[in-house]
Structure formats: C-alpha cells, structure tokens
C-alpha cells in the first residue's frame, strides 16, 4: 500500500475511533501533515548528505466549555498505539479545559464540506539524478538540494468535514559557482521543480544557468552605495512578496499594530496602479482548505491597481473583530500569491533599464522600520551593472534599505509581461507545499546603503 493510502487510512481510522469517544458539547478537528521524502544535499556536484524522512504528524484541536486546547504528536503508524496516544491526549484536553480561562474567540466550522485531491507525479530515478548532477559537477561547481516524494495535508472534524490533499513532486534548488577574473566567487541560482521529471528540462535549466554564469566571469564592478535604477528578476520580486506574509496583509496584525502596510490599509498611501496582488488557489500548488478545513475563495484580490481590496482574515480574527472572514490560515499569510503581469516584455528588460542594476536574487530580507514598511536585505547571485541596455559587468553585492511604498508605489515604472512559477523550497520541520507566480519589476530609483 502506498504512503498516501496508509496515511489516509490512518487518519480515517483514528478519526472514526476518536470522534466516537466525544460527548455532547465537544468539538474536535484533526489535521494530518505527512511526508515521505528523499532529501539529497550536494556540494561540488557530489552528495554531501542523503536523508530519507518518513513522518506523519497529527494535530488535535479540541474545544469544549468555551475553551480550546491544541495537541500535536508524531504518529507511529500503528493504529492501536496511535489511538492510545490520541485518547490519552483527549483525556488531558478534557482536564485542561476545566483549568483554563474562557476563550472569547472560539470558532466552529459550520459547513461540512468534503474534498479529496491527489496529484500523481513521476520522480527521477536516483541513478539518473546522480548521473546528471555528477556530470554537471565536472564542468561547474554545483551545490544544492534535491527534495522529492509524497506530501499529504488532511483535515477532518467531528461534524463530518473531510479534506485531503496529496501530491507527489520534486525540486532541485541549486547554485552554480565560479571564480571571476578578479578571483571573486560568483554564482547563479537555479530551480527545476515539477510533478513529472524530465531529464531534458533539468539539463536545459542547467544550460541556462551556465550561460548566466559565464556573464559573471568578468571583473566585478564595485558600485558606491546610492540610488540606482534597478530591474528585479522574478526571483527577487518573490523574495519581497514573501514579506507580505509577515503580517503585512493580515487583518489581525493590522489591528494589533503589527502590519507594515498600515498606511496603505488606512488609505493614507496608495501604491502604483501597476501593482496588483491576489491570493490565487487556481495555481493549484497548495490546498484551498486551511487547518480548520475551511475552503478559501479560489481567488481573492488583496491589492488591485495599488489599492487595498482585502486583508487576509481567519475565523478567529473574524470573531474577535466582528468582520467577515475569508478562510485565511492561522498566521494570515499568503499561501498562493499571484502578482499580476504588466507590459514589459522579457526581451526588452535591458533596454528599458538602460543604465542601472539588474538584480537576479535578493538575500536575508527583514523589516528595518515596520511602521514605514521599510525593508533591508542584500543583493545575491546574478546581479549586473547595465549601461545603454547592455550588461557591462557583475557587481559586488550591495545592501539596500527601502520602503515597500516606493518599491510598489512611486518608483515602480513597469512590470514584466510574463510571470514565473516559483515552487516553495523551504523544508523547516517538513517540506512546504505551495508556491507563487510573479513577474519582474523595473524601478526608477532604489536605495542602496552599504
């Protein structure tokens, strides 16, 4: 039986047994996050660490007497042992709600919906993967991570709701390094991801990366900090868009004084009419249901032509502030961001930039002044100085400190006509699901400080 099938059966078996133990007034939601993954870490085109991870993590959200308790544990896979653990946690939850203060913002999912989605994939044979990367390692300094296998997210509750999402896919998130004419390390970033492995597509990704790497072999151009025209490639835009999920478009964060976009939300500032951002589950990269089993709208406009349309609101926030929710997840971050394309064709990027910086990637972004939506971070990987629409030289990395209001507002000159799909590659605790679709952006002026 496949890992997906055993995980589903385990969830259903445990659910049926635990729900059968509930008494009147008790509500229970179960969440299963499971993965059967192979992680292969490479350095210099060779395997540094090979790790298989098979894990099934069950979360129990229990509500009774106007209180809520959350427990999570790693399933052993044996239903009798796991049921004993789950029932002992149920007993503990019953004891806790007699000791805890009342929670005024509890919610119950009224709609008893059901859904089941499985995306079948074709993973690379291990020897084929090692052969391609080994050969690449002989012509370039390849470093990176392959992650491939099955992921499952599922929710059931005691009212009968049941959603399951499972997928089989992979990514190779890699860097190619070289040393330029001045003896400096230079690198390009590549990502090949999908459900169906095609060796030819991976080789094409590597070929394009090698081509860009050659552009970095010249002597680097040290640039003084200051203000420059810049073009951000989609991967760089994606890094900035990720910050929107750090409270910026969360209703709860706004009410708590913790949203960077407070001035936009309160209509003191507008962004550029060229900037639109939505939560778009039609991308198909992540399940529409959240950890309570609520199903989000297929598409939700967050910012439209520079004006705020919707904040993300989970049901607890909705209850607390008495506003309608939109089935956001607990942290009210974007799960499937989709930035609208513009009119700047890929082929015209350098000529439109004219004189300025082409930024391939950004690194280590953080707020530097939350109240003014100011962020800091570094350029990284393939970044070039461009003159008269031609790449002249790679740059030495620069630190920036700039506000989202200028990036997506006053300084936004054009948005790319095509967008890139970028699968999430973070693997903290377990491999993430989801991804984004973003185009590049041309800015009139951008502030570098170090």
């Amino acid at each position, binding site marked *: 039986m496949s890992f997906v099938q055993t995980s589903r059966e385990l969830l259903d078996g445990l659910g049926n047994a635990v729900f059968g133990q509930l008494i009147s007034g008790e509500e229970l939601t179960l969440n299963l996050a499971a993965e059967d993954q192979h992680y292969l870490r490479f350095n210099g085109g*060779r395997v540094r660490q090979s790790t298989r991870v098979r894990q099934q993590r069950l979360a129990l959200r229990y509500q009774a007497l106007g209180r809520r308790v959350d427990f999570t544990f*790693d399933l052993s896979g044996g239903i009798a042992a796991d049921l004993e653990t789950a029932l002992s*946690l149920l007993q503990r939850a019953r004891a806790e709600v*007699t*000791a805890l203060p009342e929670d005024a913002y509890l919610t119950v999912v009224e709609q008893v919906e059901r859904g089941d989605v499985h995306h079948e994939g074709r993973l690379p044979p291990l020897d084929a993967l090692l052969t391609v990367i080994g050969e690449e390692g002989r012509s370039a300094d390849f470093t990176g*991570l392959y992650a491939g296998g099955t992921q499952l997210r599922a929710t059931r509750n005691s009212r009968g709701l049941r959603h399951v999402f499972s997928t089989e896919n992979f990514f190779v998130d890699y860097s190619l390094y070289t040393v330029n004419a001045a003896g400096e390390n230079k690198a390009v970033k590549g990502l090949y991801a999908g459900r169906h492995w095609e060796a030819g597509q991976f080789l094409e990704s590597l070929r394009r990366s090698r081509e860009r790497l050659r552009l970095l072999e010249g002597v680097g151009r040290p640039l003084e900090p200051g203000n420059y025209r810049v073009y951000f490639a989609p991967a760089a835009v994606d890094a900035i868009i990720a910050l929107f999920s750090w409270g910026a478009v969360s209703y709860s964060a706004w009410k708590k004084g913790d949203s960077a976009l407070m001035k936009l939300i309160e209509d003191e500032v507008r962004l550029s009419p060229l900037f639109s951002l939505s939560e778009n589950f039609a991308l198909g990269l992540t399940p529409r249901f959240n950890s309570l089993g609520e199903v989000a709208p297929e598409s939700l406009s967050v910012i439209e032509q520079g004006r705020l349309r919707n904040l993300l609101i989970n049901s607890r926030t909705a209850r607390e502030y008495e506003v309608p929710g939109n089935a956001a997840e607990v942290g009210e971050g974007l799960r499937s961001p989709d930035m609208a394309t513009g009119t700047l064709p890929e082929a015209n990027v350098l000529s439109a930039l004219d004189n300025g910086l082409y930024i391939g990637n950004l690194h280590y972004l953080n707020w530097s002044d939350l109240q003014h939506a100011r962020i800091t971070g570094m350029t990284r990987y393939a970044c070039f100085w461009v003159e008269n629409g031609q790449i002249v030289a790679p740059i030495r990395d620069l630190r920036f400190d700039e506000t989202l*209001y200028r990036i997506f507002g006053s300084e936004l000159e054009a948005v790319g006509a095509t967008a890139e799909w970028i699968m999430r590659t973070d693997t903290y605790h377990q491999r993430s699901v989801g991804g984004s679709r973003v185009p590049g952006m041309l800015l009139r002026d951008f502030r570098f400080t170090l």
Partner: protein
Amino acid sequence: MTVSLAIEPKLTDFDPLAALAWIRPEADWLAIRYVHENTYRRCARNGRPEENAMHLERGVMIEAMVDGRLAYAATSDLSREGVIQAARRAAGDARATAGDRLADFSPDWRPAVQGCQNASSAAWLDSTSLAEFSDRLIQATQRLRVTDDVVTAVAEAVLLETETRYVASHGTDVAQRFLMTWQHFGAIAQAGGETQSRSMNGPTARCVQGGMETFGWDALLDDCQRVGEQALELLQAENCPDEVLDLVLAPDQMLLQIHESIGHPLELDRILGDERNYAGWSFVKPEDFGRLQYGSPLMNVTFDPSLTGEFAAYAYDDGGTPATREYLIREGRLLRGLGGLESQSRLGLPGVANFRSASWNRAPIDRMGNINLEPGSASMEEIMGSVRRGISMEANRSWSIDDYRNKFQFGCEYARLIEDGRLTRVLKNPNYRGITVPFWQSLAAVGKADSFKAYGTPYCGKGEPNQVIRVGHASPPCLFRAVQVFGGGA
C-alpha cells in the same frame, strides 16, 4: 484534582539499544538517534488566553554505513518493522550514492563513548498548576497594558522537555535530558499616528535551561510594567540620528551581534561550502585560523557548552562527541572554528563538539551552541564615561547580513543618547550597520563579569533540508567606536 503543567501522554515503549540489535545485519556500521521532545506553548493576549498547545515529537534517525559510505533515514514508526525498513532505506542509499560521495565516512567521527546528562531543575513542570500559570500570564498582559495606548500586550511561555539517546554499533551510548524555557513579554503602543513596540529583552531572547524556577513572577510582573511604560516612552521619542557615533550594545543585542557576525562565519561547514546554496558561504578562509585579527585585543570569544543554565549547554553533541569549552577568538585573533569531527577531518582544522540536529527527522550539521563574548574589565560607569557622544541600544528587532557575513544591518527596540558620559534622551527606531571585521576591530570596551548576561534564540535557521536550532549567547555590554547609526522613516 489540580491539573499541573506536565503532560504525560500514553506512548509505546522504545528501547534504542534493542532497536540497534534489530537492524544490526543491515549495514557495516549503524547508529540510532532517538528524540522525544515535548514543547508546551502557553500564551495570553490583552487579558485573555490566546494559545494553549503541546507539541510532541518522537522518532529516530538511523545512520547506516556500507563500504565506507553513510546515509540517513528517519522515521516516526518505532515498531520493529518500521525501524528495520528505515535502516534498509539508509543502507540502500549508502550503496546507491557510493560513487557520488563528497567524502568517505569514518566511524571514528562518532566516538565510542558512554555517558549521560540529566536535566536539573528546582521546580519541574508538575510543580505548577495550569490554572495558576495561565493566571500569571494574563496578569502579565495586564501589567504590560499600562494605558489604553498599549493596544497589544502579549505574554508567552514555552516549556520544553527533551530526551535524546544516541547508540551506535561500535559501542556509543549517550543519553541526555534537558528542561528549558523561553519567555516573551511584549507591548505595542499606538497614539497620534505612531506605533512602537517594546519587549523584555527582545521577542525571543529570554531563553534558558531550567524549569519553573526561571519564572520569578514578582520581578517579571514589575518588569512588564517597565516594558509597557517604555513602549509609551518610544511614542514620544525622537528618531535615532543618522550619524557616525560611538555605540554601546546591551547584552540582549550583543546576542544577535555575536550570532550573526561571529557564530555563522566560523561554522566549518559554511567554510567548506556545504551551505552555499542556502544561508551562504563565509568570508573566513581556512588559512585565516591562527592568523586573522578578527577584532580588537579586548575580544575573547568562547564556545562554552558548560555554562550552567545557558540555553545550548550540553555534554555531548549529536554525534556523541564530548563537549568542552574552547576559545574561538583570543585577544582578537581567530583560533578555532565551529565544526564537528566530520568537518574537522575534511578541513584539517580544529573545531568543537557542535554536530547538532534540530530533531529526529534531520541529520546533524555544524551548528552554534553557546557562543559567548567573555567579560572584560570595564564598569558601566567607565564605558559610559568614555563616550562624549554616542548611543546605547537594547533588544534586537531587526537583523540582516550578507551571505559571506560581511555587510550587516541590525535594529533595536530602544535606545538612549549618550552625551558627555551620561545617558540622556530616549530614541526610537535605532539601527546601525557595518562590516564584520572592521566593526569588531572597533571594540573599545567590554563590561565586567557582573554585567555578563546570557540570552539565546530558539530560531537559528540553517541547512538543507532546513533546520531550526536553539543557541545561547552570553556577553557583557560592549562599546564600539565610530559606528554608522540611523533611524526610521520613509
């Protein structure tokens, strides 16, 4: 019956030594690292409960060596069949990747030691009732909310019980238990279009080993009042100036400065390039050890897993290497990197016992443990007295550094101007930036032992697949000359 904080769910027994015998035929050499960790998160906001959760992690990581090649497989299935299957997966991968390995594995990198370390606490979790503890957290939010201008007051406690056992087929058997806590008490104030945050030492800095005795509630509640008042103070404060000034960093900001600009660049796996596709490389080169003048002669930095109560104190790393205190930097000169036996062997350089993993489902890599700046000889009066015009900053709120660990920019919650040797006006939005080696070479005074304080973070991220790990950083206040400081605003 009183409900205590401690939770003891029913779990099947698991004996790592017996499991090692089950899998012994599967490979030339094998090891099992068993981890059981309970993480309790109790949180209140604005006088109400916000979260009451417990997260139980339990599983094993199998290491299997075949023909000198090593591979890992992790599973939460602790049945005999589950563990054997994991061992077979690891052994199969060791064979399959044999021709593509970066380095051969040596069982010598997992010392054949036997030992144990037990957690110590004056008050275990079962000594405190859940109702009483919840009430304390709610009281804390009430004390933080000194006026209605404090729109958000949060009190959060994380309690952590960890048990690990590492056994290997050549005789290693190391058992360790830990009890830890971390605390966050924070206030966000709003008035007149201004919003400011203040917390007790920064959002995740108050991390220690110990139990319920680490919650001295009378003092904590008084401190919550101070935090709330300082959030209001910041609403009225002027912006930090944009100027080159002398800079005094409190221990709760030194933790971040040490972490980002000493800890990460000294990790040997970064220097080896393992981390280049994610967190980055390092400006430090192998030939710099023993030669590079990293900072001023006042700079003495240790890897110290032995400091009682510090967050990342331990007796053995996750490869079974006994952990000892070592100088990384002495009188400003770089001596030793942060790398376990694997990296030490690959680089031919000395390191420390820091081969660590986030949990049972991740293979160990080189991580920080407790990285401390040792005390100097200056009193606070002497430090302040040596500054004509400068800024004193406390509690980290923003951090960013490049992938080689050179160009950094850090921000703090709270600052005060220093004028003619005295602390004067409060400043909001304090930030500073610099470049690692010149910055540490500008170190001009280091506080005495009585000002040495230990903090940490539970959220140090690194590795592929990604791992978060707990680290400790202790330091006295330090003075740096001529640093670029600046404030907030558009």
